[in-house]
């Protein structure tokens, strides 16, 4: 993009030119008027003097005549046009106006005016600069805002308290437009994500079926193989049979793991039927302590369970809530593994109720937080930063929350991350 002159620069030069012209015009007109007045006065006084001298036939010495006429007159040089000819004592005198003297006397008389003119000129130019600034700055801000939006950034333009109506209107409209664009982008992102998930689901569903059947067959055959080996020679007596049993055990373990992954994939693409009932969140806390306590202890993490309200009853599926808490907590425990040793590792599970009729359940960690560059991808299926992760934990959490008709929020910083799930309160259930 080629950069021409800015509107501000053009306005400044125009205003400066106007100021300069106005001052020159005013001072010029005033000086010209003074010159004309002085010249006319000199001519009139000269005519009066001529009349009195010639009428009475007086003889007046040259220097007296020049003294009476003042500095505006001088003797005409030979060959020069005379503005005044008078006869004094029989002698012709030729006089002319001394323009240089007239101008000098005007400038001496009008020097205050000239000073005021210069003061006015500088003041006008400074004012021009300020006016250009005030008028063009909102446009520059809008241009900056448009560039930001084009660069895919969210932007809200401030509007000064003293901004005129038009600028205020323009800024408000711009901010509304920026909000709409952002909303539209969010919707587009959601639609594109749903499309991706649908395609992914179809593919996973087909693949899982194809893998699961041979896996089941392989598991049965392995069991049969173990029985055969044990029948031929008991493992406790024969070392070769013992080795074979160990190898078969490893194969069984790996097959079970593969089966587990396939089940997880299937449950992700074809979640089980949601059974929404009244669930007392308070009951989840003892479960958390018993299920998560040993895990947390193993990783040197302090588990804290809290409740900000008593007897909070929400409409949900208890089993799914437990899965949700488990997924979030395991994620939190893994996140805290990378936090420095000096920082206390705390996993906090909190339940409570909001004033707006929603119950909540939050899982917080004291880990290093989620880096900004991956925040928008953490709910994508199969997105993981760990070598052994499936990348389904948080996407399953999101799917569960959506299935329960709730909402999920995330707050992350250097101090840690908090996931909060909001669910509708059971209107008939007890709540303190």
């Amino acid at each position: 993009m080629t950069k021409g002159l800015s509107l501000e620069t053009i306005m400044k030069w125009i205003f400066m030119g106007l100021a300069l012209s106005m001052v020159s015009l005013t001072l010029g007109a005033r000086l010209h008027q003074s010159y004309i007045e002085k010249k006319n006065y000199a001519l009139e006084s000269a005519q009066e003097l001529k009349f009195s001298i010639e009428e009475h036939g007086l003889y007046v010495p040259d220097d007296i005549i020049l003294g009476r006429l003042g500095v505006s007159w001088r003797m005409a040089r030979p060959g020069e046009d005379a503005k005044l000819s008078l006869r004094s004592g029989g002698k012709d005198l030729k006089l002319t106006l001394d323009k240089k003297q007239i101008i000098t006397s005007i400038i001496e008389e009008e020097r205050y005016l000239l000073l005021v003119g210069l003061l006015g000129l500088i003041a006008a130019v400074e004012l021009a600069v300020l006016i250009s600034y005030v008028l063009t700055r909102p446009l520059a801000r809008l241009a900056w805002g448009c560039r930001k939006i084009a660069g895919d950034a969210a932007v809200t333009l401030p509007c000064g308290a003293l901004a005129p109506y038009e600028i205020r209107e323009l800024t408000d409209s711009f901010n509304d437009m920026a909000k709409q664009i952002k909303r539209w982008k969010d919707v587009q992102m959601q639609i594109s994500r749903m499309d991706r998930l649908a395609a992914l689901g179809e593919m996973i569903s087909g693949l899982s079926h194809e893998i699961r059947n041979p896996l089941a067959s392989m598991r049965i055959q392995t069991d049969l193989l173990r029985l055969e080996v044990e029948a031929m020679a008991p493992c406790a007596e024969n070392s070769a049979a013992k080795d074979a049993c160990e190898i078969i055990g490893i194969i069984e373990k790996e097959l079970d793991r593969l089966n587990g992954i396939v089940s997880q994939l299937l449950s992700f693409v074809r979640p089980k039927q949601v059974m929404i009932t009244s669930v007392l969140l308070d009951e989840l806390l003892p479960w958390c302590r018993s299920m998560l306590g040993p895990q947390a202890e193993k990783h040197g993490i302090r588990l804290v369970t809290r409740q900000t309200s008593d007897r909070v009853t929400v409409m949900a599926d208890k089993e799914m809530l437990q899965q949700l808490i488990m997924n979030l907590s395991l994620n939190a425990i893994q996140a805290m593994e990378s936090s420095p040793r000096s920082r206390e590792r705390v996993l906090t599970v909190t339940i409570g109720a909001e004033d707006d009729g929603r119950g909540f359940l939050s899982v917080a960690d004291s880990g290093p937080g989620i880096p900004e560059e991956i925040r928008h991808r953490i709910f994508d299926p199969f997105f993981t930063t760990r070598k052994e992760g499936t990348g389904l934990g948080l996407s399953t959490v999101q799917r569960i929350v959506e299935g329960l008709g709730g909402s999920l929020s995330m707050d992350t910083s250097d101090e840690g991350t908090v996931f909060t799930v909001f669910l509708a309160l059971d209107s008939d259930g007890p709540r303190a």
Partner: protein
Amino acid sequence: MSPLIYYLAAFGAYTVSIILITGQSFGWNETKKSFYLGGRRISMLPSTATFCATWISPLSFVGYSMWLYRDGYIAFLASVNGWLLGLLFFPFIVRRLREKYVLSLPEWLWRTYGDVRVRKLVALTMIFLYILYLVIQFRAFGITVSYMLDIPAGFAATSLIYLFVLYTTFGGYPSVVRSDVLNLFLIIIGVSVAAYFALPGGFEPKEAFDVILMKGSPETARKLTFAEIFSAFAIMLSWGLGVAGNPQYAIRIIACRTKRDAYGMLSVSPFIVGWFYLCVTFFVLVCKAKYPLPGSMEETLAFARLGQFLPDVAGTFLLISVIAAAVSTANSQLLLAACSLCYDLFPSGTNASSGEGPFEEDRFLLLNRAAITAIASIALVLSHANLPDYLMLGRISWTLVAICFFYPLFLPKMVVKNMLFYVLSVALLLQSVLVFIIGISPEYAMLAVLLLEAVLFKFNRYFMPEGAAGLGYNK
């Protein structure tokens, strides 16, 4: 033709030139760095021009001239020698100043010695001393203009410099540099023309040499007393240290595009400044020998009267050069005072995260311009108050500068970081008591205070464990 016409024409031309040359400000892409330092992209020649133009103030022009006219070469020994002595210190601090990437000298002190209180204390002192400096420029300008236009010295005459200075300072450092190029050109032309036309019969090398040697003057035969020599030495030392530590020069070193440009600027400047002093000294010595002035007279007015002994055009150039000297120094000092107020003393909005995009920067620079207007207005009012003469105001300012900056800038290894704030506070307080309450000459007081600073640093270094004292500076 009446000299008034020359004066008016020259003055009008100067006004229009300043308006056209320095007219742009409030740019959308302005930042603090571009406003205070021109983005640290000023090349050697404009840097040299602004360095020299800022150097030549009515104090070093009119004040020195009239002292020379009155007392002869003792003025040269004490003042010009002192100032040029200060110039010798600058090459030693180029690297130290530029490595910190700061926008102001108080910030440099903070980043170097790690105490934000030092930054605030020095910023406050700078605001005070630059207002005093501004009073000098405003007064000299007002009197010169009133003489040139034959009007009473008052607000009308002084308002012009107020508007000039606001106009040039609103554009920040780049605007100041542009106006300084014009001002330096006018100053050098003015003093060169004055020196050339000073001798009544035209310039004659032999006669000029006699004038420089002050042949026939009774003062050449007079021997200086010990008190005079000591006084001249004290003034020379204190003015030298004042120049060496003066932030208006240090900031120009920081604003240079490269270190090479900074060294280039410091190498060329002595020649320009030297030429200026040579011309002024010669012109004043001719006036002293040939044109006696009647009785006691205000110094700027007396200097303007000396100008009338020159041909009209030369006299006009000389008086315009006094105006240029006043404007060039005033806008630079006003920018530094506003920077101290907005950036160092109350640095609100200087945190990058406190606002979105360029809005915060824009708001900050607008506040800066409001501060410029406020400080200039205070100086304008004070220039009509009954303050001491130029030399006294300059002496007060220079000594304060030396007290604040001499040790931190030039002897950093001597400074005890953790004690710097207390030492500077005690030093400034003591200097104020000695000068304003007891009435000691600022130079003598400053020498005592600098000695006290050294003793305090030594004392702390001796009695405090090295780790607690925080010796030296942060590289």
